[in-house]
C-alpha cells in the first residue's frame, strides 16, 4: 500500500494536526494485510516538521515496524525531520530508492 502524505496537506507543521492525521488514517491502516508494506511518499509535501511527524510517523513505526518503508525525497525539511526522528526513536527508518 502506498500513502501519499500530501493527502494530509502540503504544509505539515502542527502536533495537533499530526495527531488528527494519525487517527484519520486508522481506518485505511486496517486494510493493510499482515505481510504488506506501507510505503510513504513525501512528494508534494512542502514542509514537514518534527512535531507533525512525531505524531504520525513515530506511532506508525511503533505499530508496523519494518513494514513501514519511506520513499526518498529531496525536500530539506523532510530530510532534517526524518533524521531527528530516527535519533528520538533510536532506530533507523527503512528507505526504498525510487528510480
Amino acid at each position, binding site marked *: 500500500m502506498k500513502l501519499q502524505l500530501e493527502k494530509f496537506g502540503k504544509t505539515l507543521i502542527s502536533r495537533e494536526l499530526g495527531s488528527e492525521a494519525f487517527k484519520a488514517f486508522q481506518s485505511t491502516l486496517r486494510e493493510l494485510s499482515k505481510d504488506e508494506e506501507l510505503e510513504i511518499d513525501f512528494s508534494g509535501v512542502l514542509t514537514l516538521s518534527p512535531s507533525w511527524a512525531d505524531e504520525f510517523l513515530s506511532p506508525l513505526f511503533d505499530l508496523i515496524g519494518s513494514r513501514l518503508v519511506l520513499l526518498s525525497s529531496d525536500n*530539506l525539511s523532510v530530510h532534517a525531520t526524518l533524521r531527528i526522528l530516527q535519533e528520538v526513536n533510536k532506530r533507523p527508518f527503512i528507505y526504498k530508492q525510487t528510480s
Partner: protein
Amino acid sequence: MEEELLTISQAAEYLGVSLNTLRRWDESGKLIAIKKDGGTHRYYREKDLEIFASDMMKFASEWIKDGVEFPSRFYCPTSSIFNARLTKMEYELMQKPGFEKLYSLIVLIAGEIGDNSFAHNLGKWPDTAGIFFGYDLAKGVIVLADRGLGVLETLRQVRPQLPSHVVAVTVAFTEFISGRAPEKRGNGLKLVREVVTDQPIDLFYTSGDAEVRMKGSDKKFHVTRGQRIVRGCLAKIEF
C-alpha cells in the same frame, strides 16, 4: 502635488488597532499624527504607517512585556490561523530567489517555534491566548512571540528540579526528554538548533531571562542570562 493623507479611521484600519489606541499613541509620542492648519483632526502618511508597522521586534517585545496593543495583522489567536498564515508565508518564500530549497527549513523553524507556543499553553494561557507572528521576507526577518508560561514552567511539569530559565532553555534545545508526555517540547527545538547551526539562518530566542543568540559564521550554541525577564517566549529568525 500634495501627498494624500489617511484619516484616523483609515489609519486604524490600516494598522488594525482602535481609534483610541491611535489617539493614545499620538499623545504619548509613539506615533505622532499630522494636524492640518492647527486643526484637531488627526491624519497620517501611509509611508509613515508602513515604517511604523515594520518594527516587529518592538511590537512583539512590548506586547509580551507590558501587554501593549499591536497591529492585528501580526496576531494569530488560534493555531489554525497561525497555520494558514504560515502557509501563505511559505508560498511567498518559495518565490524568493535563492530560497527555492531553503524555504522548507525556514518554515520548519518558524512552524516549530509557533506551534510550541500553542501546544504548551493550550488551556493554560495566563491572559491573552495566541501568538505574535510577523515577517518581512524582503528584509529576511520573522518574529514570533507569546505571553504563555515560558519554557521553564512548561518543562518543570516533567523536570520539577530545573533551577533556572537558562538551564530550562538549554534542556529544551539540546536534550531529548524521555517519557515526554505530557511535555513534548524537546525534539522540535533540538532540530531548530541543528538547522540553524548548519544553514545561513540566524536565531535569537528568549524565555524568562535566558537568551540564545546564534548568529554569523561562528554559531556555537550557548544560553546566556539576559538583563530582563521575558514573559512567555520571543524569537527572531533572520536569513
